[in-house]
């Protein structure tokens, strides 16, 4: 996937003009938040669960080295292998090595954000191994040659008609005159097409919603059951996960599961929650013969101990996306990299560098909705502000905005001059628009006036009126006395 974070503003403009996208985003604005609210209302202990989920992850981050060692030990005791990878390149190469050793032609894949982060699909394809996305949404966008636009609903930007087009284009083995009007027909077709892929795959590649240190298990959460067919059928199961996915125990995993599905889709529990531990046992009739875990750093250790450490609690539920006015206006692609929405705007600069992602932290109104719905209590607005501050401080050249702010600060520190200048501006603006009560154009402010009129000031400034003593003497004393 190409990185497009530097053209954020342009991406956003294109997204706002895209009518199909806007219809689908409208649907999202009503769907997920409403369902989440219903699920939360049905769980009186939700707030306590959130606090504990946060504490669990904080505890893990404080002991991450010890937990990782314990996790690795458990995986190995159960016959699995752990491969530590510093960056995306190392992870890709390790995966390829395992696939080659398994003589793999095809790899089925269940949805993984880490898979996106290391661009594993392109890499495998370039090396002659066919990667097949099996989550329906991921399958649709793979056919369309697109990256996901939402963490848990990757094809949220695609209309039903577009799905139909993609299926007709790719599934050429089926009769051309078949009826795909009904969404259920599309579902049956996808089920049929992917069934054989599941059965033929040599390697199954999954992500991990969590890694359990106590047992050495990886947790997989899906609604479709695609992850289960991905790990259970092929000869080799590869798990790709980043280091902060650790949770201590099965009990801790259970607590996080309770906030995960509710925050994500508004379900009490996702349909399939699976704990995989090592390869198949001696007496097992099915299951993979090899079990590998790719444990990826890729910038996480740089965030540890920094002011952005708290983003490492994120469990990728998407609640912050679903409630963000910016995400709901522009969708996920506009953010330009793997992680969209408020969590992406915090994580992306941390992983790819602030220089390439400096627009993202500004893509927020700081309304605070994201923090209020985050199941892990991540203070997203605070972290967004921290990035803004860092970016401002690191700016090599002075921008127009900075110079203007400096000038304003200089002016504001001189009250007499400030009031004079202010009075002058108000008088001018008032004179310009007094007749209609609005102004159509102001120099240097076309960013505002090109979209909407600016309301004309209706007289003097507040201070001028105050000093005129409209409701008190010039010192304002009477006002205060009357109040008494």
């Amino acid at each position: 996937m190409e990185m497009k974070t530097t053209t954020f503003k342009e991406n956003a403009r294109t997204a706002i003009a895209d009518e199909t996208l806007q219809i689908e985003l409208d649907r999202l604005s009503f769907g997920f938040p409403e369902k989440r609210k219903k699920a939360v209302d049905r769980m009186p202990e939700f707030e306590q669960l959130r606090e504990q989920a946060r504490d669990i992850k904080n505890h893990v981050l404080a002991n991450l080295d010890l937990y990782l060692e314990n996790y690795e030990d458990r995986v190995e005791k159960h016959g699995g292998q752990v491969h530590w990878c510093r960056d995306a390149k190392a992870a890709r190469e390790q995966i390829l090595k395992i696939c080659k050793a398994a003589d793999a032609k095809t790899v089925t894949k269940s949805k993984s954000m880490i898979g996106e982060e290391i661009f594993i699909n392109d890499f495998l394809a370039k090396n002659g191994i066919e990667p097949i996305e099996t989550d329906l949404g991921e399958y649709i966008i793979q056919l369309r040659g697109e990256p996901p636009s939402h963490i848990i609903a990757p094809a949220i930007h695609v209309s039903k008609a577009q799905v139909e087009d993609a299926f007709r284009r790719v599934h050429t083995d089926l009769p051309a005159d078949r009826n795909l009007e009904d969404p259920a027909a599309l579902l049956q077709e996808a089920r049929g097409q992917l069934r054989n892929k599941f059965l033929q795959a040599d390697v199954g590649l999954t992500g991990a919603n969590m890694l359990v240190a106590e047992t050495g298990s990886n947790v997989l959460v899906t609604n479709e059951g695609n992850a289960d067919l991905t790990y259970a059928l092929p000869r080799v199961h590869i798990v790709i996960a980043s280091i902060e996915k650790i949770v201590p125990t099965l009990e801790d995993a259970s607590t996080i599961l309770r906030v995960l599905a509710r925050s994500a889709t508004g379900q009490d529990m996702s349909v399939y929650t699976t704990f995989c531990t090592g390869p198949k046992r001696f007496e097992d009739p099915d299951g993979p013969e090899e079990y590998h875990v790719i444990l990826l750093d890729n910038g996480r250790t740089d965030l540890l101990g920094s002011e952005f450490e708290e983003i490492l609690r994120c469990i990728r539920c998407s609640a912050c996306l679903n409630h963000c006015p910016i995400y709901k206006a522009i969708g996920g692609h506009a953010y330009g990299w793997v992680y969209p929405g408020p969590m992406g705007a915090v994580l992306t600069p941390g992983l790819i560098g602030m220089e390439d992602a400096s627009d993202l932290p500004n893509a927020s109104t700081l309304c605070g909705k994201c923090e209020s719905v985050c199941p892990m209590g991540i203070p997203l607005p605070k972290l967004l502000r921290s990035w803004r501050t860092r970016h401002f401080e690191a700016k090599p050249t002075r921008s127009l905005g900075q110079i203007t702010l400096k000038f304003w600060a200089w002016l504001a520190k001189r009250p007499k001059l400030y009031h004079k200048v202010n009075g002058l501006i108000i008088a001018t603006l008032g004179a310009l628009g007094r007749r209609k009560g609005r102004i159509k154009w102001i120099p240097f402010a076309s960013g505002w006036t090109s979209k909407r009129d600016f309301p004309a000031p209706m007289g003097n400034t507040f201070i001028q009126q105050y000093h005129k003593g409209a409701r008190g003497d010039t010192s304002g004393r009477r006002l205060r006395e009357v109040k008494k």
Partner: protein
Amino acid sequence: MNDSRDEILAKIRTSRSGPYVVRNELGTIEDRLKNHPRNVVPARGDGLPEEQITKFKAEAELVNATVTRVSSNIDIPKEIAKYLADNNLPSRIKHAPSLEHLDWSTTLMEVCHGIGEATDEVCVTTAYAGVAETGTIVTYSDQQNPTTLNFLPPVHIAVLNAVDITGSYEDVWTKLRADLGSKDQSVNFIPRTVNMITGPSRTGDIQQTLLLGIHGPQRLHIVIVDEKTP
């Protein structure tokens, strides 16, 4: 590879002296791993066994599963045959080896057992436990219970003993540790695969419309049995 391991661990250790490190309020890792303390467990799954069964049924039905209850093992094959006939489904079933003890000859169904295969139409498996909180069934892989059988066929019928219905996921972990963890080797109690299943397979990926049965089964039918299987 070992270099990467050491580098990552070293970097984590250095980072812990940073000015922004989060506060740990949960004690030591030794304590947590050894005692695996429970966090808040929602009251929703609490109750007397009969209340938990009612709750389980209600929650499972909310997520599009169907639930029936029979009094003894003899009734299981008959109940399954009836369910398949009522819903106009094929009467060929593949059951998990764990259900071989049942007398399948009392019905006209075609019966076989084994691991899941592409041609399977209806599977019958054993549920290790049920969770009242969310109407979830739990299965795990072993010689008698192949994982693939739970996922490949379009119709999944699960046999669940009433006594195995618990309140919460935590209750299942406790039961699993007690059943499978030998005293000296309790770290290795976990089976290769533990599956929690809450309703039939679903997706919202086409136009955010709920559709059942994309990759996993389209139907999940749970048969609760009052008599404990030996």
